């Protein structure tokens, strides 16, 4: 399994990052990707901007562990995780998770698994500025905890 993990404070151009996930890998039958984008509203308020903070060093370790766990659960050819930090505007890509596998089912499962775990285990924090001028830390969502917990005992493929 070929793995690349990157944290960057420059704009993420997700579709330019995709070819290396499958190019030159003739046994890859399917590539599943997730791109998370900054929305222009949250909890009913218009959002003007966002700052993404992280825990340098731990972030990379946590992501590597999550990807490694995915590689133990499913047969994967390549995984790429890229996450933005710093200042973002609405519609900016926040994260890319791309998974290549021989079979589509494994690629789908692994990609969603990585996202669900990233959402609960990777040390990133969002602070958003509303259009009204308030700044606030985004609260963690129970639905994210539930999504990650479902993998603990759920079917694996």
């Amino acid at each position: 399994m070929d793995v690349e993990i990157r944290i960057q404070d420059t704009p993420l151009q997700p579709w330019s990052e995709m070819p290396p996930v499958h190019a030159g890998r003739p046994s890859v039958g399917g590539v599943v990707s997730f791109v998370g984008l900054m929305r222009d509203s949250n909890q009913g308020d218009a959002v003007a901007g966002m700052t993404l903070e992280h825990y340098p060093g731990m972030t990379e370790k946590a992501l590597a562990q999550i990807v490694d766990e995915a590689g133990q659960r499913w047969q994967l050819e390549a995984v790429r995780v890229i996450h933005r930090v710093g200042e973002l505007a609405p519609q900016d890509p926040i994260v890319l998770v791309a998974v290549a596998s021989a079979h589509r089912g494994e690629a789908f499962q692994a990609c969603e698994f990585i996202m669900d775990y990233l959402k609960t285990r990777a040390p990133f924090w969002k602070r958003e500025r509303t259009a009204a001028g308030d700044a606030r830390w985004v609260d963690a969502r129970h639905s994210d905890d539930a999504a990650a917990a479902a993998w603990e005992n759920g079917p694996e493929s």
Partner: protein
Amino acid sequence: MIQVLYFASLRERLGRGDETLDQHPDTLAALRAQLAARGGAWHEVFAGDLRVLAAVNQEMAGEDGAIADGDEIGFFPPVTGG
């Protein structure tokens, strides 16, 4: 000696992002109690209703997580990336 880091809303509440402690207890639970004893925002963060996660040497750790000399301890709120 241990290094203690505070992130995101915790850093803001506590007014600092990191500090070095010459003396330290052996577990995360004891370290939390020691920090809470400072009172004020420290008490609110470490003895209140907030959910505060911790990492020892950049690995998530529970209340019974052991602390040894030279460790890096991180405290932070539930994560919200992705």
